[in-house]
């Protein structure tokens, strides 16, 4: 079983997920960012499910490992959907909704087919390196998509502060997870995952809760100021 620190981080993460939804409801941003909030609710429900499986089968059981990694993959795909809605927000004045939706469907089908092919090839090593590889790939695809969106924000001079911070925090989340899982794939004996992954998991709800709670939906900023390379 995880220690008291592990449970504290877990509880904090779940609490922050609820905070995101409450903040969005309180500040009337729930419908505007519907999929982001649905993702947070779904993530909270999965946390409850993980706790149930953990308390019944134990941390080292294959049931918990399967549940953890499969729910993680499903959650990441849900996060893709949330990301696609952010694309729709950025491109809303260009009337390209149809193409963005089509690209989203193709991406989802492509990811599912790729994952299925990997699963079929690796069915004999389900609980060894396969899950790390799958998670690493899913997070990396998310990172690439967020990076493209960030490029579009700079190019289109998007000025909505709340939207910019939602996208940047998502970029931090995807890149932190992709780097962590890649590191785990490179050095399978590293034991730093116990706390690092849950702590990273708290960053996204923390940043989103802040963005919903503190920033007015109509607050604006100059995006060129944020680029690392001056534009």
């Amino acid at each position, binding site marked *: 079983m995880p220690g008291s620190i592990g449970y504290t981080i877990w509880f904090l993460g779940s609490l922050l997920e609820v905070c995101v939804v409450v903040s969005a409801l309180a500040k009337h941003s729930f419908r505007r960012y519907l999929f982001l909030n649905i993702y947070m609710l779904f993530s909270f429900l999965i946390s409850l499910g993980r706790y149930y499986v953990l308390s019944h089968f134990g941390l080292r059981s294959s049931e918990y490992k399967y549940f953890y990694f499969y729910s993680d993959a499903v959650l990441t795909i849900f996060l893709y959907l949330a990301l696609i809605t952010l694309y729709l927000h950025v491109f809303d004045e260009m009337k390209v909704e149809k193409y963005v939706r089509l690209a989203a469907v193709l991406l989802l089908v492509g990811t599912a087919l790729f994952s299925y092919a990997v699963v079929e090839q690796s069915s004999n090593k389900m609980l060894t390196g396969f899950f790390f*590889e799958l998670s*690493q790939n899913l*997070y*990396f695809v998310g*990172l690439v998509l*967020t*990076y493209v969106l*960030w490029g579009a924000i700079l190019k289109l001079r998007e000025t909505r*502060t709340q939207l*910019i*911070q939602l996208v*940047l*925090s998502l*970029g*931090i989340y995807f*890149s*932190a997870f*992709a*780097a962590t899982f*890649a*590191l785990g*794939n*490179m050095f399978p004996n590293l034991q730093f995952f116990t706390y690092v992954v849950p702590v990273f998991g708290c960053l996204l709800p*923390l*940043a989103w809760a*802040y963005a919903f*709670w*503190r*920033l007015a939906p109509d*607050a604006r*900023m*100059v995006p060129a*100021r*944020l*680029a*690392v390379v001056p534009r």
Partner: protein
Amino acid sequence: MATLIFILSAAALLQFFISYCRSLIAASIKQPLSAEVRDVTGIPNTASGEDFARVIQLLDLCPERPEERGRIRAINTYFRLLNLVRSTLARVIPALVTWTEIERGQCTYFAAVTLDRRIAFSRDMLAQQIDV
């Protein structure tokens, strides 16, 4: 493959982190400082990176607001990163000296704005206690 993903992800993480910190700073940079915070911190119109540690010490003296904790930590980490760039890369690329100095000054201004908010928050709490 994993090595490549790790390198690209770490580079993207750094870039997103810098942009995120700058977005936090940009949101506070428009707010003017109150006269008392100017007096306490000794910051006239433009803040300097040299004052950052002192402003953070003053921040620690005020009651903390929970929603600010994460942002202060992020900016603190960003400030350390800038110090690292200043003491390493900036020696090779002199143009970075000016850039890091401006960024460090903005970090200090962000901390001063947060101090302003905390003082106002403490004053409100005190007023509420007196009313009770």
